[in-house]
């Protein structure tokens, strides 16, 4: 009797939630993999099994490889800049014991709560060639020759997108690092200071190894965040332009599905997105695996 009640309780708690997640979250992802083997255009059209044909098209599609390259650029640049700045800010704020420490924490974190749509539109205007504050700032300080059409120039568009992503994310990681740095026992620093260690040496030999576990996890978080979040930025700010210079896989997939009606092919690009994100999680996890230092 008791076990019947128990299993009823368990089922009631777990099953509805799980079924809803399967239908709305998990199954669509699996279905997208299956769809990659079909030619299927539009809602009314008939899906036709075509085996690996979509994959052949994919391999010969230069736009896919261009987009992949742009994805990789963002994945290399954004986490590196974000992590470096976040660590620098977190370390100096915790070490220097500034009175306004709380202020920095509140302000730097703030972009993280803004909508990506708001940030994208805002930065479109910051980068705007004639109305934007970036170009007019450069003119103001006498660097006229640096002004350009930031989002319309194939040489600067990816960097401009990357900076926007870094702007949004730094505070989040800084707050996380500050929290874990505060957990590092102060006697370690005291001992290091007696031994004459510089700030940089203290960071390298004490702080960094001790918070390594957090850094490791956040690198994975950030890489996946950049990979998933770049869709909104690119789709709003550049739509992949100019001339595919900022095209990325998710935007290309979305275009293939909802603008060109090539649902099957879009799903094939989607598989590439999936493979990369799983690969990234795996690589990040492996590369950063290291003995955790206990204290």
């Amino acid at each position, binding site marked *: 009797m008791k076990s019947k009640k128990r299993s009823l309780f368990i089922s009631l708690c777990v099953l509805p939630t799980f079924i809803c997640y399967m239908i709305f979250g*998990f199954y669509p992802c699996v279905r997208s993999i299956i769809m990659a083997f079909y030619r299927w255009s539009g809602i009314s059209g008939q899906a036709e099994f075509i085996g690996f044909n979509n994959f052949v098209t994919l391999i010969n599609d230069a736009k896919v490889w261009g987009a992949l390259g742009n994805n990789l650029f963002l994945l290399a640049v954004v986490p590196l800049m974000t992590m470096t700045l976040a660590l620098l800010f977190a370390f100096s704020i915790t070490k220097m014991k500034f009175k306004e420490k709380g202020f920095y924490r509140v302000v730097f974190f703030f972009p993280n709560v803004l909508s990506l*749509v708001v940030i994208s539109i805002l930065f479109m205007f910051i980068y705007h060639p004639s109305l934007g*504050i970036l170009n007019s700032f450069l003119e103001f300080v006498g660097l006229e020759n640096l002004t350009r059409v930031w989002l319309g120039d194939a040489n600067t568009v990816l960097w401009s997108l990357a900076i926007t992503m870094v702007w949004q994310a730094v505070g989040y990681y800084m707050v996380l690092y500050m929290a874990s740095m505060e957990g590092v026992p102060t006697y370690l620093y005291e001992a290091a200071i007696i031994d004459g260690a510089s700030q940089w040496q203290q960071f390298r030999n004490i702080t960094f190894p001790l918070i390594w576990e957090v850094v490791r996890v956040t690198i994975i978080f950030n890489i*996946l965040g950049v990979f998933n979040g770049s869709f909104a930025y690119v789709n709003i700010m550049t739509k992949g332009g100019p001339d595919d210079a900022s095209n990325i896989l998710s935007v290309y997939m979305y275009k293939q599905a909802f603008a060109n009606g090539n649902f099957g092919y879009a*799903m094939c690009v989607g598989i590439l997105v999936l493979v990369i994100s799983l690969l990234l999680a795996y690589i990040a996890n492996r590369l950063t695996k290291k003995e955790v230092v206990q204290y």
Partner: protein
Amino acid sequence: MKKKEETRWSMSKLLIRIILVINTIVVIFPLIWTILTSFKTSTEFYENPWKLPGSLNLINYINAIEKANMGDYFFNSIFVTVLGLLICITMSIGSAYVLTRYEFKFRSLFKQIYLIGLFLPPILGIVPLFMILQQMNLYDTRIGLSMVYAFTAFPYTIFILSGFFGSIPKEFEEAAIVDGCSYYGILWRIMVPMAKPAIITITIFNFMGFWNEYGYSLTYIASESKRTLPIGLINLMEVQRYSTDWGALFAGLVIVMLPTIIVYALLQKRITSGLTIGGLKG
């Protein structure tokens, strides 16, 4: 010798402070600029971007709310966000609790699927889900969109709540069982009140997520009258591009930002400390 070191120390302190102040400006200035620009008339807009607006006229806000329907979008966003939060939180609590505390068949399978779910790129399922919503007659409905928000947020929500339930000592439940409390009683009267900090934290995070969401509402809402704020804002941008009257767009930006600014101002301690509760200890 000592003195020299002290001056070096305070010099580097000053340098770091300057860097931090510059970053403060880099973060705050665009936001102040947005707010100021939202009060500018269109002639003022095309002048120097650093110039202050001549007066604090609200014409752009009136245009955004009346002509560009930002008022309706605001209502839609509230509807979708609140309903999504209610569904997500009520359905996740029991699941997270049972998955952390009870042994049963398929438990590890369920846990594994949620774990994989954490790493699946949301964009991947966007097309099939589009078809599923159409088959269920939920495409282009606000209820459908809130269901998408709620259900796709399960892995993350359950992950955070499980971590918290796992940290509550088992003695509380054991005592309750001795007192003859039912399973439901233990969950709702003991565990939920104890997990309140985690529930509030995850509610705040999901609020931010749902309120600011872009991809799903772009794809699953077709009617103009059902758009959420972020998509309404994109639409406003497209419209203003042709009329080249950007004031209303900046007013729209402020309207979208305002609730998050308020929530953040009131709850920033909870938000930043909540990161460390849930985010990484699990």
